[in-house]
């Protein structure tokens, strides 16, 4: 976790709203505060308002209402070039008519930094991203990954305290993306810069961030560290958006000892942990991760409720097995099991009983 010695928020959104057409809000009442040095990811589907938030922070969009503060100072009326925020763009936006060194030198030139100083800083920044030899090349002569590093170096060369990244790895292939994810996090933590990272890739969000803000419909649905987000989603959107998730609809029968008994729509009974259901009779959506589903009766507690299931499909995926079941009238209930020597391989047509630990299953709002 990033050091949060300074309790004052470094970046703060206070009741920020944004509308483009004066009729609908793309960002609705956004409140967010980030300590210095944090790596925060804004995650969400397209149109959820995350990029708009980033652009407001960068200064390319103005907030319709509310205040954005940087280090305690409102920056609503500061033009982008005076904010001193580094930014990495989706398609890198390296200036094609300049060499890499000239690209890196650009922010220093406009800051009127002397030539020798400039050269030293550019060299250091290039070495930082292991591109020391590439200064004389043009962006078009570099591979996607190298361009990405150059863009990163350019955003960092003038030593900003805050760096914004707008889906910077979207154009890279999977392997390179994973490598860059690691490098970016590493660099951000090493330099102690505060980073706001926008992506729609949840794996990226989970692996890189100190905290993830999940956006939907112009609101932050949940803001939490990755493990918490994955394991304790606060609502059904987050549960479904982050990771793979099985959902079943039902009604709460009773809530007792912090445990809810849910009656599914086909009559089956199952235990779940109540998250945002309050009383018996509430409609709910229960959510369970595929890897937490158990079909070995012996591993469940004797009084646990189970559901009947029929195996529809068994998919061999190498490290894991993926099995599709029909449960409570739903045909796309997935369970994942590890490929271990003693692991049982289910066959299509087999009738099994499934269950889970009550704390793994969350009873969420039914929307």
């Amino acid at each position, binding site marked *: 976790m990033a050091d949060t010695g300074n309790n004052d928020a470094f970046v703060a959104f206070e009741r920020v709203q944004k509308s483009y057409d004066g009729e609908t809000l793309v960002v609705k009442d956004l409140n967010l505060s980030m300590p210095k040095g944090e790596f925060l990811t804004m995650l969400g589907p397209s149109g959820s308002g995350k990029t708009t938030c980033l652009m407001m922070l*960068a*200064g*390319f969009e103005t907030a319709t209402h509310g205040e954005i503060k940087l280090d305690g100072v409102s920056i609503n009326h500061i*033009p*982008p*070039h*005076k*904010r*001193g*925020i*580094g*930014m990495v*763009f*989706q*398609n890198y*936006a*390296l*200036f*094609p*008519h300049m060499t890499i060194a000239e690209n890196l030198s*650009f*922010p220093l030139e*406009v*800051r009127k930094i002397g030539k020798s100083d400039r050269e030293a800083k550019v060299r250091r920044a290039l070495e930082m991203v292991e591109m020391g030899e590439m200064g004389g090349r043009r962006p078009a002569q570099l591979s996607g990954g190298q361009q990405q590093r150059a863009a990163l170096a*350019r*955003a960092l060369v*003038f030593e900003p305290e805050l760096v*914004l990244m707008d889906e910077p790895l979207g154009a890279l292939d999977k392997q390179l993306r994973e490598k860059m994810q690691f490098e970016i996090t590493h660099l951000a933590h090493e330099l102690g810069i505060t980073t706001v990272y926008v992506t729609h890739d949840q794996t990226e969000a989970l692996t890189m961030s100190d905290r993830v803000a999940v956006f939907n419909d112009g609101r932050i649905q949940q803001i939490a560290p990755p493990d918490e987000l994955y394991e304790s989603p606060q609502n059904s959107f987050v549960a479904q958006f982050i990771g793979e998730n099985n959902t079943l609809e039902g009604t709460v029968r009773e809530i007792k000892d912090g445990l809810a008994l849910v009656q599914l729509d086909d009559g089956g009974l199952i235990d779940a942990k109540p998250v945002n259901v309050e009383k018996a009779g509430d409609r709910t959506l229960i959510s369970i991760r595929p890897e937490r589903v158990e079909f070995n009766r012996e591993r469940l507690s004797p009084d646990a409720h189970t559901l009947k299931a029929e195996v529809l499909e068994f998919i061999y995926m190498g490290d894991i097995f993926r099995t599709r079941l029909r449960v409570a009238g739903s045909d796309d209930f997935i369970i994942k099991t590890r490929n271990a020597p003693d692991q049982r391989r289910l066959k299509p047509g087999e009738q099994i009983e499934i269950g889970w630990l009550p704390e793994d299953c969350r009873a969420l709002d039914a929307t």
Partner: protein
Amino acid sequence: MSDTTDTGPVLAADGTPLKRSLRRALRAQKMRALALIAPLLIFVLVAFIAPIADMLFRSVENQIVGNTIPMTVEELRDWDGADVPDEQVFRAMFFDLFLAAEAKEHTKLGSRLNYEQSGMSSLFRTTGRRVDNMGKVFQNAFKEISPQFDDAQFWFDMMSGGAGAEGNARLISNQIGRLERLEATTFSGDVGFVPGAAISDILPNTARAYAAFAAFTHFVNEDVVSEKKPWEAVHAALAVDLEEPATAAALAAYDGPGADALRQAAAAELPPIDMKAAFVDANKDWSRIEYWQVIKTYSPPYTTGYFLNAVDMEKTTQGVALRSDDERIYGLLFKRTMFMSLMITFSCIVLGYPVAWILANLPARKANLLMILVLLPFWTSLLVRTSAWKVMLQQQGVINDVLVWLGLVADESRLVMINNQFGTIVAMTHILLPFMILPMYSVMQTIPPAYLRAAKSLGATNWTAFWRVYFPQSVPGIGAGSILVFILAIGYYITPEIVGGTTGTFISNRIAYHISTSLNWGLAAALGSILLAVVLILYWAYDKIVGIDNVKLGG
């Protein structure tokens, strides 16, 4: 696999070399591609390349002199140009001109030479009317000596040397060839006349003149040679032959048809032959040495004369020299054309850049609307647009009226904005503006807005971001637009013709004048060739300085 390790050529599966195999496989594809472009290729060749080649050729071509008066050209070769040529030259001119006058080609030669020396046209025209009379003297004299000389068949028999005589086929084919060049056509078929070898040795001039007459009668007049009385020129040629003392001696031994009559004529007293006097009598300009110098200077089949003319120079007896000040117009016109084209290009950049920028940065729907406004001029007739500017800019026009009404300009000192350079630049900038906006727009469209944002996020002000990041990337569009506008402007004709007056016209207006009014196509072609060369040189220079790869018309 093993094929690739061999040192020999790589073989395909069936043993043929892989390269040949590949060629064969691609042939059908290539043929199809060729067939697809063939219509355009043929069209371009016929409608574009061929006329340009013809124009380039016309700018140096000068065969008319050698084709019309070949013997004179031959005789003038040794003329030193110091004094009026001697009788030999005038005689050659007589025979040349006689044939040319029969073929009615002498006036064309006159017009051609008139480009170089005024007065030439009338000189040839008036003399052409008199050549018949110059020969008439001899025709009458021969008729008096023997009525046989007035008989067509007699002449035919005499010149062909009688049945079974050895013929001089070369002489007649030479004359046919000369006639072909004169008439710029080709003849096929037999004249029905071959000069006798013996008689053409004795009477070379007569044989040549009669052969020319025979060829002309057969091919051009489509008559039977033996039924037509020979021209006055043939009689004159006979007189020339008989003037030679050796001829009488040779005739004494001759026994072909008409030998008696010829001996009779040789013995008789003939009128003196003085073609020089006859020519000067027909038109006294024939005694002016500069006229003859012009004929000699322009006698080779190819000339630099048109090009020299096009750069305000001329050929004189002392060699090539600049024309006198008051005759120099083309240099001025070229300079003016260049200057105005540059001004127009520059105005188009200044006016077009912001429009292209807005077009590229507006949402698609609004951009389309604005685009229609940009393209509107394209859908209006060029003449209408140009005439509209006339209405706008003239002294009693809209702009002047408004200025006077506002009190900015006094009524008696209305601005002169049309029929001068200003008018041409304004009207042409308006007309060519779309050609500047469209390439700039298509280039700007490809510049992502992220670059400007990136620059600003890096700390650049709006202006720095534009100037250092956006502008350099839009230069290819400016380049493409500038080349397009400049090349179109440099050859523009209609607008400067209508609004240019005298000071706002382009070199193209002068070319049009020479094509349609003065009919000096050679000079027009030379001016056009220079214009083409200037454009190519500028294009080359642009490629060297900016690089043609940096020119983008789109994408």
